[in-house]
């Protein structure tokens, strides 16, 4: 049984009188602890796939289930709790909160979920140290390199021990060396924590870091080969 199941998912966007199929009858599964890499050119529907999987963008057809529960049959409140507990996000532009330090950024999801701030901070420090940022706890995002910022974003995505991390072009804003480091880190965390990762990217080199590779073109799922 897959952790995340997409079954016959379709999604179109309207641009004036033109309708573009972002996802066309897409079916796929992500099992617990699996690292799935979705590749495709710009406009192929990668980000849409991620947003649909996260319960942020309702598809016009098909279903999305997480652990057997239909995500879009849930109430908005339940979906919110799902994002708080079971999902983690990593973005191309990091989306860190500038005035907060690295450790405060990482602790934020825990505090939002009801953990006491000092306990959340301890937990965040442990995760940051694991990611090699023990000497950067008090640094603001502006004081960190791109690769370090993305590592903080990854720490924020996994600090609450989610079951699935959704990563949207996490290397898109990094040089190749830093990008490779981030991908390796995600791969390690996937194995170490048993967390599933669904990563979308146009970077073909990312494929080698995943357990399975899926290609998207013009909204169509082309392959689901295990790497």
């Amino acid at each position: 049984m897959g952790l995340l199941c997409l079954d016959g998912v379709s999604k179109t966007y309207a641009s004036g009188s033109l309708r573009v199929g972002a996802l066309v009858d897409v079916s796929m599964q992500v099992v617990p602890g699996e690292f799935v890499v979705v590749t495709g050119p710009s406009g192929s529907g990668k980000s849409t796939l991620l947003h649909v999987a996260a319960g942020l963008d309702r598809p016009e057809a098909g279903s999305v289930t997480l652990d057997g529960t239909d995500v879009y049959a849930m109430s908005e409140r339940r979906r919110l709790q799902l994002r708080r507990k079971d999902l983690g996000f990593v973005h191309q532009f990091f989306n860190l909160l500038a005035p907060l330090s690295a450790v405060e950024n990482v602790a934020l999801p825990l505090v939002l979920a009801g953990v006491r701030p000092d306990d959340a901070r301890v937990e965040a420090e442990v995760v940051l140290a694991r990611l090699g940022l023990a000497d950067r706890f008090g640094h603001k995002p502006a004081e960190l390199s791109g690769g370090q910022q993305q590592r903080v974003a990854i720490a924020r995505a996994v600090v609450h021990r989610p079951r699935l991390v959704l990563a949207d072009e996490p290397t898109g804003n990094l040089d190749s060396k830093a990008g490779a480091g981030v991908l390796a880190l995600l791969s390690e965390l996937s194995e170490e924590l048993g967390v599933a990762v669904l990563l979308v990217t146009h970077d073909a080199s990312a494929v080698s870091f995943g357990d399975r590779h899926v290609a998207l073109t013009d909204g169509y799922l082309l392959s689901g080969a295990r790497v």
Partner: protein
Amino acid sequence: MTLIEVRPHRTEGDRDQLGGALRRSRWAWLVAWQWVHWRHLDWRRGLAVVLGLGVGTAAILAVLILHDSIVAPFEALDGRIHSVNPDAVVVRSRIGNWMPAEDLRLLPESFQPVPVAGGFADVVAEGSGSQVGALVIGSDCRVERLLGDFDCEGNLKANLEDAPAGVGVPVALTARLAGALGVGEGDRLVFPGGQDAFVQAVLDDSRLDQVNSGYLAVGEVMGVAELFGHPDELSAIYLSSPGGDIEADVAATFGGRAEAMRPNGRSRYLVPALENLRRFLVLGGMVAAALAVFLGASVFVTAAVERRRQIATVELLGESRRRLFVGFMAEGAMLGVAGAAVALPVGVVLGRWLIGLFTANLLDGTGVHLDYQVPYRLLVGCAVLAVGLGVVAAVVPVLSVFRQSPAEMLAHNRTREYAGLAKGSWSVLFALLCAGGVGLMYGAGSGRLPEVVVYGAHVLFIAGAIGVTVLLAPRLVLRLPRPTRGRRLHLATSFVQTDLGLAPWRTGFTVAILSAGVSLLVGLNGLLVSLQATVEHRAVVLDDRLLLLGRAVGDPTEHALDPDLVAHIEGLPQVEAVSPLAETALAGKTTVFAYPAETHRSRFVLTGTGGEAAGQAAALGAGKVLLSRFAANSWGVGVGDTITLPTRAGSRQLEVAGVGDLLMGSDNGYGKVVVADIGIARDLWGIRDTSLLVATKPATHAADIAQALPARGRVHVYDRQTMTEAGQLHLRRGFSPVLGVGWMMLAIAAIGVLLMLVLTLWDRRRQRAALRQLGMSYPQELWALLADAAMLTFLAVLFGTTGGLIYGWGNTLAGPVLFSISPPFTIPWHAIAVATAIAAAVCLIGALLPIASTRRFDTLNALNDD
């Protein structure tokens, strides 16, 4: 992102049009530039700029209308009178507004002297009780050759000869005044001095409409002097100059007690009032202009920074910065035109409201009548101003962006540390400006510095306070420690710091603008409350058996008590004793208070002059006076020194017997105050009794005395309570226009703050989207917005109240310049409460307004928006 993309979400059509226009013509390029900017996102910012410019310019227009309707007519009087006869010169007494009629004989016939009596006064129709302010002029028809052709012979002399007989002094009214009073020929009138008068003629002369809006009464010179309670006295002598140094001739003739000047038609009391008003309006106009530029510029800052990549992209396409600059100027001008469309109707309505406040309150009882007018040139000027402000607001932020190279712009990282954190030295500098402003207020108020520095002090203080607030407010919040235990408080602090960190400068300005409004409200109310305390102070000397009789509190016309009336009061069976009180104005903004020093009644003034003056009051006698500290400092004298003042017998040296701080205001006190024994004051300055302190027999009430007075005349009877109420009411009414301007500024500030908050929220969309993805719930988002509102309110109230209290205190220090007294500062608790409530409401509305759209918020777009 590729270089050819102007913005990620622009369409191919946008790019084609812009690119094509770049190659074709300048005008097509400008149109394309605007089209691309406005097509999608920027309409909100455009609307905010339009509103900002519109509101700011409207405030300027309102202030200019006020100036044009109140100050300008009196400025113009000079020109109107002078234009009729360029050689006309007026001789005025330097002691009060009146001079002995026999002075006329001192002038040689070659000067062709024409006697004039009169001034501004309230005229009451005896039957109906209707009351209208008017300029009452008494002269003969020779004045026509000086004042202009209003057919004196035909209208006045002939009418007076043929008119029906009446009781009292005959006067002719303009048709406009007669209509406003609802009187016709033969009807009886009441004038300030309480003399009987009747309408002998109604003049139909449009020429006179230009003076005091046509509200004029004219009569025979000595008759009008009687109407003001000054028989055998003149208020001016007009001369047709025979050439030569007429000023020197007049000075030689009168020995310094009268002076020759260009005619201006303004009384001694009106001149300083108008000067203050003009400066106040200039200050108000400057603040309004600063607000307009700020509101526009702060919106453009957002636009310019966000357009950084866009500018860089177009530059890389080969466009010059000069043409980019012109594009921004064109955009500013277009928004300015739209701002003008908002500003003109709003400004006219605001101006009408302000004039209503002034005419209903400040000028009530002065006899000055104002017409509401909005000159065409003002409307055109303000439209041009709005466009100019729009261009300035657009260009200033772009200049800062242009300091970067295109490469730097493209690599621009939003997450930068707030520069204000490193601006400690600037904070100190701005704090010093504030301190300097208060220091100048004290210097001017103590008489050690020239009066005019008071106005500079206001500018200095306001600039310093805004600077301190802009730099320190965000700094204070960003340095706030986040609680490690309380989750809600921790989150609230985090959200506030996160939101503020996105646009700290704008937050600083938002707090500054709101705190400036709070400061004005608190400061001006503090001054009012402090002055009102002096009214209580003054009234407290009246006890159950002491009453004050005289003109109404706040009546600035210098009319004396009718001696017959005084004799009547003295003869009343309920009256035990009376003591005269008097005041008059001297040249050089000096006020003389005169009281009998030797009786128990002298405590009326001694309560007001504290310190050493009280101890030396008994020494008041021939040739001795008490001075306010302001007067002593201004003249650089102390106890035992001598001062030279103009008297009716020429200049006279007087010994300073005491110097004190005046804690008690008078109706008309202004600037330097001299206290003298009333007997000496009568001798030296011909001073007339303006009030009576009446000691009554036991169980006598103010109403008993009022009923025993003759029906004619306009004498008011005050006991402690009614005097306190009347004095406080007078102050409140006099202050209401000033407070009105304060309210107007607060309203503008509120609009500005709302705009800023809405715009800030728009800028925060990506951050909010990230927080939502992290699991931030709707209630938590609401909590975050409320925390922002609470923090902004706290900062605005903290800085605003602190600034307002210092501002109000500084104004009380400068009190002697404007009010002749330096009252102890009283904290206006009610104003602080009101200002806090308003600031909270503004911030709350600003925070809650966008909540309606929160549910429709497009998280995905926001996350991907670069």
